[in-house]
């Protein structure tokens, strides 16, 4: 059976991708999961300088979902290259680095550094970080500022260029058309949803930054709709994600048009969730005598 898939020029051995922020820098997940077996690993969102993130508490559990307010904590791109790239060089899996910035310049600076790193196969740009003040949110709130950022990044990124979208005001079809014009290689859909939690014991909002991002099984139907609409509007390859916790969940995303699937929150409750999902895809295809995962991508219309 053929489970290979493709994000533009980047070939993945299978469609299951670890999403950003739920697999650390690679090292952290490695004792639990052989990262050579996933289609790709996406690194925690990197910024130019280290970022200490938000004050605790940073995570809250809702019905079948998780709210996080990590605040994009990360060690910064330089320390990542020093401390983690050598480790990643001992693996053959695809490595996608997720990046963010607080203005166009800082995005461009990180992208310029990472595009020179051989071990990096793809650069995923987070344009929708609801947790950080002045964060990416501003770049996805209208087509003009999104287009400006992405256009400039396209000029500096020589790796597979992935734009990671979240819920936004603009029509997702319009965004896809814009990204197609800007020659983006792939999109990841979706990032977390802006949400709020209240602690009735203290009678206060739970997170210090008030809103936080909702992920996990609760958002799967919302994510499926976004992927469905995005892949109908454009042929840009899409990594579908949002609440995937089983092989069936992954197949749903592939059926509506995703070419790969991201596993995020599920990894937190089970570090080998991605492997079980991959096995689920395998056995579903083989039970139906379907030769290639390509054959089901976009079949549900």
């Amino acid at each position, binding site marked *: 059976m053929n489970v290979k898939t493709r994000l533009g020029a980047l070939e993945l051995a299978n469609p299951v991708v670890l999403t950003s*922020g*739920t*697999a*650390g820098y690679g090292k*952290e*997940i490695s*004792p*639990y999961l052989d990262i050579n077996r996933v289609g790709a690993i996406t690194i*925690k969102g990197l910024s130019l300088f280290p970022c*200490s*993130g*938000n*004050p*605790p*508490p*940073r*995570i*809250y*559990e809702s*019905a*079948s*979902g*998780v709210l*996080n307010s*990590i605040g994009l*904590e990360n060690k910064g791109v330089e320390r990542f290259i020093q401390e983690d790239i050598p480790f990643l060089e001992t693996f053959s899996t695809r490595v996608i680095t997720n990046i963010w910035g607080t203005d166009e310049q800082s995005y461009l600076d990180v992208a310029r550094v990472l595009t020179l790193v051989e071990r990096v196969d793809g650069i995923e740009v987070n344009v929708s970080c609801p947790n950080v003040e002045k964060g990416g949110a501003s770049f996805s709130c209208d087509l003009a500022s999104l287009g400006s950022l992405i256009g400039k990044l396209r000029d500096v990124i020589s790796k597979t260029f992935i734009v990671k979208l979240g819920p936004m005001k603009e029509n997702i079809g319009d965004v896809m058309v814009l990204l197609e014009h800007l020659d983006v290689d792939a999109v990841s859909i979706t990032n977390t949803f802006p949400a709020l939690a209240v602690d009735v014991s203290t009678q206060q909002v739970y997170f210090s930054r008030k809103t936080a991002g909702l992920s*996990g*099984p609760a958002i799967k139907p919302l994510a499926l709709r976004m992927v469905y609409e995005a892949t109908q509007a454009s042929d840009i390859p899409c990594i579908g994600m949002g609440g995937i*916790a089983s092989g069936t969940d992954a197949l749903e995303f592939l059926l509506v048009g995703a070419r790969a699937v991201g596993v995020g*929150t599920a*990894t*937190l*409750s*089970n*570090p*080998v969730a991605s492997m079980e999902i991959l096995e689920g895809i395998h056995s579903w295809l083989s039970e139906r005598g379907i030769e290639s995962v390509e054959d089901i991508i976009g079949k549900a219309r």
Partner: protein
Amino acid sequence: MKKALVTGKRRDGNLVEFVCKCPEIAKSAVPGQFVMISVSTTLDPFLNRPLGILWAEGDYFSVLFEIVGRGTSLLAQLEKGDTLSLLGPLGNGYSLDVPRALLLAGGRGIVTLHFLARTLKEIGISISMLFGIQNRSEIVLSRYMVNCAKGVQRFCCEEEISGVFQGTIVDALEDYATVQTIPEGTGVFACGPEGMLRALARHPLLENHRVEVSLEAVMGCGFGVCLSCAHKGRDGYLHVCSEGPVFPLSEVAW
């Protein structure tokens, strides 16, 4: 995920102890470590819950927890013969290379210090243990104090209980210090509510000692990938699951 068979269950009010069979975990666990336990077979709640290891011996280990919310309520419904799905042992334990030890346990903080006391006793290190509770509802926890032939053992409660020292664990520590000096080099280990640890952090009695504390944080994964278990530290945030849960008190900030 690993599997552990529940071979024993004991319930006292809101406290539940499970004895579990899982050689893989039991044989490698050290005092201070914890496990992440799945509390539901459905998609709600979705995350695992962290619980300290009470003891480990041969193929068996045990957890002791208080029912405080959805996850612990669901867990408490499991019975002898059921199977737990879990990860562990996780985190870094207490330092065992001390000449003698003073253990300060507050409430359910006794869990990992119980394991530490048993282990130190086994390797022949003399220990003293002060154990404090807030009110009489927690009195069953005193069962987990470890009887150490040589060391001092003290039990205190903030509520009045006849025959029991009344006060916080800090009061008990001060009282203890009036009769007993804490020799230099003593390993001091503390586990309990944040308030207690904070009080110890500023306490002159512990100023010149090597103190290790075990921290709690709300956790997403428990194995270092999500960065949700942040706790204020001297230089930026500490990550309780991967860098702790045991930290030198000097590295922690509040």
